[in-house]
């Protein structure tokens, strides 16, 4: 128990450090200048790193919120009697969807929603992120031993009580693992989505590529990498926390 909270504290500290480092534009310009002494600009001129991080997180949080709000209920629904008919269809769709390249999903959304706004990116991220969440939810609920469900029903729990007090708590770790995969993929895909005008940490990278400015590329890449690793370890801690003891 103590060990778990130490992990949480460490990750929390990491987040604070990341936030501070990102806000110190002067440090970045110092380091990047020393690496690329000959370039005219070494930090992204159009937006501060802090703004880019906020944009990026905005994209990911909005899309992941949509993903979770739809994905988990869908996963639950197809394991209930009322949705059992759709279970195979949903599983097949999720399997197929996970083989789609994320950039292809992004590309397919463009003609539908138009370029230059974050909307197609958010829709694409939310859709693509749905697959691991749904499959995690189904797998998690499937992993609950039938004997446990029997016991719960035998004790007189209603269907909703069984779901909320027994099934979801026992499935929480696997569901969270799906959410974690989904969010990490979204952070990565959101970087690419900058090419469609969605903003975020991909912007300095693309700007750097277009102007052959390695410093800008590095600025965006380093921040995006740190953000992803931090988010991953945060979600790993959440996974630990929702795992029932024992």
């Amino acid at each position, binding site marked *: 128990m103590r060990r778990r909270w130490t992990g949480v504290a460490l990750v929390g500290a990491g987040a604070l450090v990341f936030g501070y480092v990102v806000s110190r534009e002067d440090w970045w310009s110092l380091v990047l200048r020393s690496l690329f002494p000959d370039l005219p600009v070494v930090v992204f001129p159009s937006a501060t790193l802090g703004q880019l991080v906020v944009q990026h997180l905005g994209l990911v949080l909005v899309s992941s919120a949509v993903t979770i709000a739809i994905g988990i209920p869908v996963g639950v629904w197809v394991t209930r009697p009322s949705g059992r008919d759709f279970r195979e269809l949903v599983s097949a769709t999720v399997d197929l969807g996970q*083989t*789609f390249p994320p950039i292809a999903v992004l590309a397919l959304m463009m003609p539908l929603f138009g370029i230059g706004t974050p909307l197609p990116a958010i829709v694409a991220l939310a859709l693509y992120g749905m697959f691991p969440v749904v499959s995690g939810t189904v797998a998690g609920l499937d992993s609950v031993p039938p004997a446990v469900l029997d016991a719960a029903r035998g004790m007189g729990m209603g269907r909703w009580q069984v779901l909320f007090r027994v099934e979801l708590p026992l499935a929480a770790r696997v569901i969270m693992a799906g959410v974690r995969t989904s969010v990490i993929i979204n952070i990565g895909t959101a970087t690419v989505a900058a090419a469609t005008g969605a903003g975020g940490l991909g912007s300095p990278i693309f700007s750097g590529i277009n102007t052959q400015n390695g410093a800008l590329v590095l600025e965006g*890449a380093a921040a995006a990498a740190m953000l992803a690793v931090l988010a991953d370890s945060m979600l790993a801690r959440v996974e630990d926390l929702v795992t029932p003891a024992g």
Partner: protein
Amino acid sequence: MGVQSASVDRQRPRRRTDRVAATGAILALAGCVALPLYALRANRIVNGTPLSLGAGGPAAWMLLALAIAAATASFSLAGKLRARVELACAVGMMGALLWALGFAAAHLAPDVTSPARVSIGAGAWVAVAGAAVVWFAAVHARPGRAWRVGALVALVVVVVAAAMWGGLGRLSIVLEYAVQGAAFWSAVWTHIALAGTSLGFAVAIGVPLGVASSRIPWVRTAVLSIVGVMQTVPSLALLGLLVVPLAALGLPGIGPLPAIIALTVYALLPIVRNTYVGLTQVDPSVVDAGRGMGMSRWQLLTRVEAPLAMPLLLEGVRAAAVMIIGIAAVVAFIGNGTLGVLVILGWGGQVDDLTLLGAVPMVLIAVAADVGLRAAGRLVTSPGIRMEVS
């Protein structure tokens, strides 16, 4: 009692709506009536104006009729008959949609010289998805083997016929393909070559690392955590981060080298992890028996552990392949001519059909790799252990 009710069931099947097929049919209907099936553009760059359903000619009305028929069947019929009607409707809807698209293209942009284009609208995608759902539901309702195969054959015939005589050649994505020509195929091959080469490297590095991980605890800890962290780094960011060390070595930060490095790194995790898990899940008593009968470590690995770990290892290779086929699109940003280039050009020039011309083949390659490697996995799995893996 049980026998009796079963025979009653056979005579008068219980009528229960096929909700999956109904959903698909309604989706297809919505695609026809609520969204544009096709859009007309004055030229390849401007946004399209939606066309009415009727622009697709008789085939469009047939599509609508088939969608209604499928919905009706899913509500009112039952048993094998329903499955067969649904299957026929699904094939018919796909065929009708293609002919409608072709009709609209051939009539509204008939001339080779005219800049006008007819492109695929959102409704068409929704209708295809709906028809696919009907198909899926019908196949799962046991229409019989002959019908399943027959439907596939019919679909191929309809698609080929539509391609040859249905005017599909005037559809804007096909025109776009004609414009790109050799560039398209070179993008396809570059895409496959980059992904394939990297996959080869990843197997060559990852399998030994996985074996070492299963033997030496500290290797496992080190390798799995390093590869795991690398995996979370966004692909574009990893490409960016590679610039500095490569430059320090005097190597280019763009082009195939950083691409292959990045793709290999991403492919490593599933391969290493599955090799490791595959080896460690081998029943210890089997290993003990092998050792007790005088197998050397190498013989034990090659004759016992490797065949038993192979299904999981190949599953790792499959996951890696699918993933890096996706990332191979991203390396187009650092000057590799993969299918990603078409997507980027499409975005840059706002040519939606060019974007599609990059994205659709990418999906097809990924799905083909997925299906192919799954089949390969079944092939190398001994029948003795086939049941345990699924």
